[in-house]
């Protein structure tokens, strides 16, 4: 329930940031959205889960760097430790991950706005340790006692590679402060299995599944934009921008 309320808040804040464009804001600073810089931020799911769930510890730093008008070099990195206590398996995964890719901003901002509705892809990589804490043995009948048994099985330095398709929003709600959320569909390509059992969770990816290599992700995040430089307007760009201004004056 708590998470749903938080989601609603974040989503509505993002949409509020976007809907502000509907009202003409020609009186605001006429930022032509031509500054290039680094946006660095934090995933909000992970710290909240770390606080509320004693079987989880993790954080994720997100960032993007503008390459061109609509393209951003984007990435995330972080660390996760998770203990899964299921019916037949109790295991702990600990490791770090990094994801890198390109985001394309498909949103045409009006003058003064710098919001993103983006699609993109990521290449993900993780290195982690898996430890099996205890396990159950499945039997045909219950004639004999069959408790969960402790295990010392453990493998370290395992790696995994995957790819993601992402979609999300980053909306500027205060000066240089962006909040938003990202949805992702992921597919695992190569995960090293531990000795004697299997991967049940991979940091940066998700809980793994026996029947499919796909998984999905949802995260909400907050980031801060650090502008580096303004791109010198070439004649073409000057023309485009003046056309934008003309269009705004027309619709007013």
């Amino acid at each position, binding site marked *: 329930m708590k998470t749903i309320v938080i989601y609603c808040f974040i989503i509505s804040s993002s949409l509020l940031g976007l809907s502000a464009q509907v009202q003409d804001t020609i009186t605001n600073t006429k930022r032509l959205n031509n500054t290039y810089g680094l946006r660095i931020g934090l995933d909000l799911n992970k710290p909240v889960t770390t606080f509320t769930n004693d079987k989880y510890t993790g954080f994720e730093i997100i960032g993007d760097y503008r390459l061109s008008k609509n393209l951003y070099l984007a990435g995330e990195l972080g660390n996760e430790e998770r203990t899964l206590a*299921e*019916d*037949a*398996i109790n295991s702990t995964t600990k490791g770090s991950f990094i994801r890198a890719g390109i985001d394309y901003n*498909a*949103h*045409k901002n009006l003058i003064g706005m710098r919001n993103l*509705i983006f*699609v993109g892809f990521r290449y993900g990589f993780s290195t982690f340790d898996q430890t099996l804490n205890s*396990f*159950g*043995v*499945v*039997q*045909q*009948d219950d*004639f*004999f*006692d*069959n408790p969960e048994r402790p295990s010392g099985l453990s493998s370290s330095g395992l790696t995994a590679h995957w790819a993601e398709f992402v*979609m*999300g*929003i980053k909306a500027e709600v205060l000066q240089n402060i962006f909040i938003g959320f990202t*949805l*992702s*569909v992921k597919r695992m390509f190569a995960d090293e299995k531990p000795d*004697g*059992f*299997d991967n*049940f969770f991979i940091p940066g990816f998700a809980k793994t*599944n*026996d*029947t499919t290599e796909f998984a*999905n*992700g*949802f995260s909400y995040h907050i980031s801060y934009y650090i502008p580096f430089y303004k791109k010198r307007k070439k004649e073409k760009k000057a023309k485009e921008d003046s056309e934008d201004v003309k269009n705004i004056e027309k619709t007013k």
Partner: protein
Amino acid sequence: MKILFFNYCMPIGLICMLLFSVNCQRDDICDSPQITPRLIIEFVDDEANVLDTISKNVEQLAVRLIVDKNNVDNVENRFVTASIVDSSFTTSSLQLPLDTLKDELTFVFTKNFGDENTARIVEDTLVFKYQRAESFINRACGFQTTFDNLEVERRTNVWISDIDILTTTITNEDDRHLLFHH
């Protein structure tokens, strides 16, 4: 055109992905066909030769796990063959569960259990020894135990005339593992 696509398809796409992520958790149910095997014992006619085994029913077979060796009738010596109605049944094939936490089990095999004519009730005591190995199945089932180096030691020689060990490695229930001649 571009605006149309991104203002309508994008939100729809986002909502779809959101729903997809919320619904896509499968319950893991253990449905592996291969799990910890039981020992398959077939009772055969001791008249027949080795190559041509003929199943022979054991009348009112009762099998008890012996925990208390001093008193066989102690209730702690539970019946493997117990059902709601009876402690024995007539059969030519038995699936004997093995303890995944121990390496040695003692069973008493009784023929004509509960017979009015108590002279007909006959018992044989057998000790099964084996080594256990655990192997991973999947996340829903966990692990299974397989058995190796099976040995059958006879404490008595009353009604089971001969024991053939067809395999000392028990990994599945596809074939019978032991033949008891009587």
